[in-house]
């Protein structure tokens, strides 16, 4: 087998996007890193005591303090004068980042630690049985935002975490998706070359929580980008500097929604069209806000296909 820094034998589900995301991130970062991880799927399936899927130093923190533990690691490296020997990467799921770990993350940004924070965004608390988090998209059926006679699933919008990071004056912020592995790795490498706090949010499908076919993990992730629901961009010093263009015309959101059981109620129950329209509106707003549509449609479509 090829040499990886995040190894096989971990107990993630079939077709797990997060396992793929974690491997891409640590492989890109290389062996000279120290990682921390908040409680969540990633920690549970990668560090089942007494085993570890990590070939790099790994600290499992509590749910809320991945960023704080990483801050301590970075401060210790500095105090020992050994900060050139290892980079620090803090990791967390969407719940451990946007809800429970937000205050520790904010502190890390504020103090300006030289840490890359990676958020694996699978859009709910999957580890504990699919409860909604701050990054769960509108209309998604989770067990704490169930669809039913009077409910259309999650009624809150996805928290704009990159904007929250930008408000702290973080020098480098990026969103990425496992559908574009090379892009994820390039962003990790670029982030590690910058001193100061960095934030990368990687969209990782969860076949269990999204009720999608495990084999279609990459296809689902790609559609999230191509419909405009998950814009991929880079922000440097608060300004959007690079945007991943999507083929023109953008795909309708129904193409993305229909692949997932968590949105099935929108198509089964009468009146779901209105909700789908609202989700389409979110995508349209993203397309407008980030200028996602490409100028030369055909060329980009061909390039996207290649990757």
């Amino acid at each position, binding site marked *: *087998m*090829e040499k*990886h820094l*995040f*190894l*096989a*034998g*971990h*107990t*993630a589900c*079939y*077709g*797990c*996007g997060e*396992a*793929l995301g974690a*491997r891409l991130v640590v492989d890109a970062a290389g062996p000279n890193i120290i990682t921390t991880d908040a409680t969540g799927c990633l920690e549970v399936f*990668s*560090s*089942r*005591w*007494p*085993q*570890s*899927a*990590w*070939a*790099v*130093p*790994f600290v499992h923190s509590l749910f809320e303090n991945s960023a704080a533990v990483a801050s301590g690691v970075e401060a210790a490296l500095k105090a020992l004068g050994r900060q050139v020997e290892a980079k620090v990467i803090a990791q967390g799921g969407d719940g451990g980042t946007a809800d429970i770990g937000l205050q520790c993350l904010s502190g890390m940004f504020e103090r300006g630690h030289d840490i890359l924070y990676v958020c694996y965004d699978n859009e709910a608390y999957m580890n504990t049985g699919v409860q909604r988090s701050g990054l769960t998209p509108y209309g998604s059926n989770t067990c704490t935002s169930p669809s039913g006679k009077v409910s259309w699933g999650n009624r809150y919008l996805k928290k704009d975490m990159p904007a929250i990071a930008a408000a702290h004056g973080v020098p480098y912020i990026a969103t990425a998706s*496992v559908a574009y*592995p090379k892009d994820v790795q390039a962003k990790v490498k670029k982030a590690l070359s910058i001193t100061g706090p960095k934030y990368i949010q990687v969209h990782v499908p969860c076949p269990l929580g999204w009720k999608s076919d*495990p*084999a*279609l*993990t*990459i*296809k689902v992730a790609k559609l999230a980008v191509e419909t405009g629901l998950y814009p991929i961009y880079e922000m440097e010093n608060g300004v959007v500097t690079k945007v991943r263009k999507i083929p023109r015309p953008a795909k309708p959101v129904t193409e993305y929604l229909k692949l997932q059981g968590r949105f099935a109620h929108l198509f089964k129950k009468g009146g779901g069209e209105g909700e789908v329209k609202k989700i389409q509106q979110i995508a349209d707003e993203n397309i407008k806000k980030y200028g996602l549509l490409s100028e030369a449609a055909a060329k980009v479509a061909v390039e996207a*296909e290649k990757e």
Partner: protein
Amino acid sequence: MKVILGGLAQPATSLANNTGNWRNERPVFLQKACTGCTMCAVICPEGCVYSVSKKVFTFDAKYCKGCGMCAAECPVDDIEMVMEEK
């Protein structure tokens, strides 16, 4: 494996897990149209698909869970999922 008390674990020890026995379907690399794009190896969540030579890929049966992502994403449909017979 040496067990250390106190919540510590040795690195890279998950390799002892035989996750391959979760598998219902196994990928078959047809090796008819492979262009050597490495997509199957890059996107395998287990990281257990690897290249033998430039256009010949195979997988490690000890770890492959049979999710079918490699077969679904192969741009030239050169991978097929077949039912595992025991």
